[in-house]
């Protein structure tokens, strides 16, 4: 009690001191500290009041000037490490910027038009198909089956026609039939070739576009080039096959994709990947000519379906080639009953047995067209009914607010 002076402790005097701050009369340090500790108003920080903090004043006194060297605020702000990092970052940015801008300016074509819709634009961001394309390049696997199984009956018919033409072309040329699948399927040259059933199996009527030599040559594994390409671009072909399943079946594109790496002697894997990713995908999709298979099939003399497949060697070659082209596996049980191209085609175009009821119903289409019947893939639950009327979100929210389970039971 008697250590502090009565005057300094009274609130009244403090108020008087605070009110008299405008002319700033001198107050000793003890008075000032005690006054602030007693005041009920908020404590003001030094920068706002314009006061120089004690540490700064000490620094000034040590250096003997009002502007001492060193940091303005040695006890705040970023540390020395952060400062160095920031400097390095700024340096890097400064180094990177000029080439980037020049590249952009160089690649913008003159006929550039900004897109108004997102269709056809490159998709940026996310992983996309990166993992699919770059999955396990050290353990490549190339199966005999194409990655995509043909389901369109017209397309399958065209593939079978192609297989027939190629097999009989090999036979006509006197080549061994087991070379039918040695080369990966290339361009389909057989569109204009007519197959006519004859006593010796079938006779082929070639057109100007595709002669016997062309077809036989297309089937021969291109020893020098293809092997090199295969070694150089194995992973790329994998990637290609994985990405667009149609490519194997539209071989014009495949040939083009294989070309560019062939010019480079030994591209590294990453180079190939990048090349495959960047340059080749988009042009392919735009170039893909959609073949009207129905017209194509109609243009052939229907007698080609009567070509006999009784010769087991021919039957095997045709089945093998059609498997390679279509991806539809003929079960061993059916092999015996296949005697003509027609019977083989019937097996190829028959869709597999549906695994689910919905698939079976979709094939029938009788129920789907009924006005009073709806077919769903899954059971319609109470939640689905609420969703159709747009009530489920509210119910869900309310249930969550009350800590109640959404589907009838809580998982512990």
């Amino acid at each position, binding site marked *: 009690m008697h250590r502090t002076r009565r005057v300094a402790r009274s609130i009244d005097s403090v108020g008087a001191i605070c009110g008299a701050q405008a002319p700033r009369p001198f107050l000793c340090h003890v008075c000032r500290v005690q006054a602030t500790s007693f005041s009920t108003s908020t404590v003001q920080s030094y920068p706002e009041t314009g006061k120089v903090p004690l540490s700064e004043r000490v620094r000034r006194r040590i250096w003997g000037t009002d502007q001492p060297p060193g940091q303005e605020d040695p006890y705040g702000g970023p540390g020395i490490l952060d400062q160095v990092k920031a400097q390095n970052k700024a340096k890097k940015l400064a180094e990177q910027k000029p080439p980037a801008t020049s590249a952009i300016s160089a690649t913008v074509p003159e006929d550039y038009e900004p897109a108004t819709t997102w269709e056809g634009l490159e998709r940026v961001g996310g992983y996309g198909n990166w993992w699919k394309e770059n999955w396990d390049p050290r353990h490549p*696997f190339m199966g*005999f089956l194409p990655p995509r199984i043909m389901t369109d009956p017209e397309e399958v018919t065209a593939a079978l026609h192609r297989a027939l033409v190629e097999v009989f072309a090999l036979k006509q040329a006197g080549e061994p039939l087991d070379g039918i699948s040695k080369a990966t399927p290339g361009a389909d040259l057989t569109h204009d070739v007519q197959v006519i059933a004859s006593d010796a199996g079938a006779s082929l009527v070639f057109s100007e576009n595709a002669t016997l030599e062309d077809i036989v040559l297309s089937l021969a594994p291109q020893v020098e080039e293809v092997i090199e390409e295969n070694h150089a671009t194995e992973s790329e072909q994998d990637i290609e096959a994985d990405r667009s399943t149609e490519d194997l079946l539209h071989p014009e594109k495949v040939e083009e994709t294989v070309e560019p790496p062939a010019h480079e002697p030994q591209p590294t894997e990453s180079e190939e990947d990048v090349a495959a990713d960047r340059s080749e995908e988009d042009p392919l999709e735009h170039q893909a000519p959609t073949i009207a298979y129905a017209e194509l099939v109609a243009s052939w003399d229907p007698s080609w379906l009567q070509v006999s497949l009784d010769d087991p060697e021919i039957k095997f070659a045709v*089945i093998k080639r059609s498997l390679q082209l279509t991806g539809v596996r003929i079960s061993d*049980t059916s092999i015996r009953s296949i005697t003509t191209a027609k019977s083989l085609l019937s097996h190829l*175009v028959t869709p597999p047995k549906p695994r689910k009821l919905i698939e079976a119903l979709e094939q029938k289409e009788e129920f789907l067209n009924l006005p009073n019947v709806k077919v769903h893939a899954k059971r319609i639950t109470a939640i689905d009914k609420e969703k159709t009327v747009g009530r489920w979100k509210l119910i869900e929210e309310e249930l969550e607010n009350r800590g109640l389970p959404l589907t009838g039971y809580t998982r512990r």
Partner: protein
Amino acid sequence: MATETSLPSNETQDYSHSILRNTTTPVAEFTPPTVPTTIYKFPTMEPLRFESYSSKYLYLPLRRDILHRAVIFEGDATRQGTASTKTRYEVHGSHRKVRPQKGMGKARLGTRQSPVIRGGGKSFGPHPRDFSTELPRKVYDLAWRTALSWRYRKGGLIICEDGMDIDYLKARYAKRIFDHNHWGNAYGRSLVVTNSYRKNLFGAMQDLGSEGRVQVVDDVDVKDLLEQGRIIIEKSALDEILRQHQSDLVAKVRTGV
């Protein structure tokens, strides 16, 4: 399991493709002496050639009763039969009378091994025994070939060239093969049967139980043949199975007995 066999070739072609209208598929009403099979190259599944097997091996009619008897026979034989309990004569302890016969106001008790006392023996408990049942060898052999025939008729018997193995001991590589050939989980899993142990294939499939199994031919039984979506079997393994299970066809079969 199917209740009746159906030949894929005899299926009603309700799919109407324009070219195929008015098609009459030739129906094989008689049983041919031999049936063709395709031999594939293993991981790529490239068809190599046709081979034919006798209809008595791969084209038998489905007999569910025989398959059932074979599976039960195998299941019985597989039972471990080691369950064991102690009778009152095997329980350890003194045979002293627990308490006097009379005068305690309680029930009479002889020894503490009595089955009515806690800690006592088990009256009619299990004891180790052999659960195996008997099945005529010819019936069992017929069941083997019936199972294979059922697979063949369903198109689920894929015969591969000898020397089945894969290039890398990698589960993800094996998975890739399974995915590419439509053998995996989405297609009902597959059983791969080889004639002997293959390091890469078996090692890769070790962690791939969700996609399929791989077994040496000696470990395969009828139930294994019926379980999964399809069987991918080495030709020598198939020949070995057929050789061992033909007692009803050939005059004399050498057995180990």
